[in-house]
């Protein structure tokens, strides 16, 4: 990448300004068994230049939330029942498909969980990156391939000029995820959504990809919404954390506050369930797991959704659902405790 374009792409973001504001979002899926309330009233805000982690178990609605921001969920059976997704002051929910296409990749890039299947096997990676920039920026074929090579260099793929002409099957999993990141960043989006980008990779590669994401964020100044189920990833990357459980946000805090003082029993359980290598080597304690399973999203229980698995459960928890309230400055939790 030439010096001038690098400068243009690293325009410092005004930190602190709201870029994305998801409020009261409800996404339901119609199935043969009834309505699955995958996302049931979720509020997440992402500031410019900020990294927000969305954490939760499988099936808690974090991926659906991420996909809904780009309206990539299948509709039907999915439908956005309520809520708004404000991106730079404009609501995405009522947007037409044409308006959505102008936002995808250009304004909001996305990286998926599975690098092995997320690239089309019949086109070269250069073609697939060039396709994006040609579509959004109307570049010539040559310029688009140059941009593709630049992007590959940016994500630290060796000999990018040669690699643009390679097919996805000629790359390893970690390298493909780098290609995906290069593709997502090729139009210099303001927000990058990374949906469990490291889950399918080896541990050593995971660290490299996270490092790359952090580096890219610093160089290009975009905001990152990182979906993950690994608390270790959260500690390493996030500024703010949103904990989701059964389609709802149960806690939201700055990353230091969350690890120092988790308010919600579910968050406490998540943090306790992180394996500690230092302790495991010396003392033979069993890893603490959260008992029970996630409630069905078909007809969620009345009251707090975590009540069945909570060690502090009271009568009041079963009677009414606790709202998400501010427990300390910038630290919200949905628990009566």
């Amino acid at each position, binding site marked *: 990448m030439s010096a001038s374009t690098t400068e243009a792409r690293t325009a410092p973001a005004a930190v602190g300004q709201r870029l994305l504001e998801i409020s009261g979002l409800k996404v339901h899926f119609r199935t043969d068994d009834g309505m699955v309330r995958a996302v049931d009233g979720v509020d997440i805000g992402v500031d410019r230049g900020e990294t927000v982690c969305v954490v939760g178990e499988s099936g808690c609605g974090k991926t659906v939330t991420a996909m809904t921001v*780009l309206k*990539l969920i299948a509709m039907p059976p999915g439908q956005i029942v309520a809520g708004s997704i404000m991106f730079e002051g404009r609501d995405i929910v009522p947007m037409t*498909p044409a308006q*959505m*296409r*102008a*936002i*995808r*990749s*250009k304004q909001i*890039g*996305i990286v*998926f969980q*599975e690098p092995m*299947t*997320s*690239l*089309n*096997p*019949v086109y*070269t990676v250069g073609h697939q990156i060039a*396709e*994006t920039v040609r*579509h*959004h920026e109307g570049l010539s074929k040559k310029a688009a391939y140059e941009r593709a090579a630049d992007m590959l260099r940016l994500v630290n793929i060796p000999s990018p000029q040669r690699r643009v002409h390679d*097919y996805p*099957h000629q790359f390893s999993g970690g390298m493909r995820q780098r290609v*995906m990141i290069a*593709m*997502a960043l090729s139009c210099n989006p303001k927000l990058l959504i990374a949906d469990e980008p490291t889950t399918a990779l080896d541990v050593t590669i995971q660290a490299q990809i996270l490092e790359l994401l952090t580096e890219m964020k610093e160089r290009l100044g975009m905001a990152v919404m990182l979906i993950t189920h690994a608390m270790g990833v959260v500690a390493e990357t996030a500024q703010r954390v949103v904990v989701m459980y059964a389609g709802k946000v149960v806690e939201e805090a700055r990353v230091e506050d969350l690890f120092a003082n988790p308010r919600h029993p579910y968050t406490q359980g998540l943090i306790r369930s992180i394996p500690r290598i230092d302790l495991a080597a010396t003392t033979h304690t069993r890893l603490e797991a959260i008992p029970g399973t996630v409630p069905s999203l078909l007809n969620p229980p009345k009251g707090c959704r975590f009540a069945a698995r909570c060690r502090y459960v009271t009568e009041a928890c079963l009677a009414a659902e606790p709202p998400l309230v501010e427990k300390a400055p910038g630290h919200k939790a949905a628990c009566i405790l």
Partner: protein
Amino acid sequence: MIAIPSLLGISVILFTVLALAPGDPFEELATNPAIPPEVRMQLRASLGMDDPIYIRYFRWLFAMLQGEWGFSFVSRINVDQLILQRLPTTLIVIGSSQILALAIALPVGVLAATRPYSIFDQVVNTLAFVGFSLPTFFTGLLFIMFFSIWLGWLPFVYNTNITATGWQWWWEHIRQSIMPVLVLGLFQGAAWTRFVRSAVLDVIRLDHVTTARAKGLPEGRVTTRHVVRNALIPVVTLVALQMPIVFGGAIVTEQIFRVPGIGSLLISAILANDTPVIMAVTFVFACLVIFFNLLADIIYGWLDPRISYR
């Protein structure tokens, strides 16, 4: 280059089967009291029919390689001439019917798959099921009854000796080809539509299609470049594998519409025990099938970069 050993193998099997088959081109002579058995034996010997099979095979093979395909026992015409007379008709009829089949199957299958379980999809599925459940010899007769006998629009006997010239000649040829092409094309088209639909449905739910949408590409481009392009790979395989069936079906269709192609030549040769013709025609069929497989391999390598030929 697996094609050449394949052809050799096919020719050995064909030759042996035909040599072992009951029936004798001199059967009629045997029942003719005017020809004494010695003359018949002499005739057999002069044609080399009493030699062991392998000698006859090699003799046939070398003659074949030199372009000497022998002559028909029945019509006394050189086999290569017989075949060359009839091959273009067969290729034109089969070729146009396959193009018709693809022209139906690709767009309809893709449209049905992009709208699964819609009214359009259900209508297509029903029609396709009807289409490939009806054998060509039945639809052929149905077409003849409807278009030739009731409506009188189309001729039902294929005529190669059209005397008209210029546009009129073309028009007559098209008119008489319509029914055989339709019968074959609709049958194949119906089968392929179902296959294209399922191939597209297999691809459309893959992750890379979501990636393509996430790039902000218009839906039409996502479908053509990232769905259909990938779905074509299994379709090409099927089309190539079905070629023998297509030629088999063409034999029946040629018989119904009296198309003077090599299919009907084969049938009449079999009925007359005309071994050189049977041998040559089946061999030409084998060559065609192998040619289409080769073609499919080439298209396959072009469609799917994961396959390479070194």
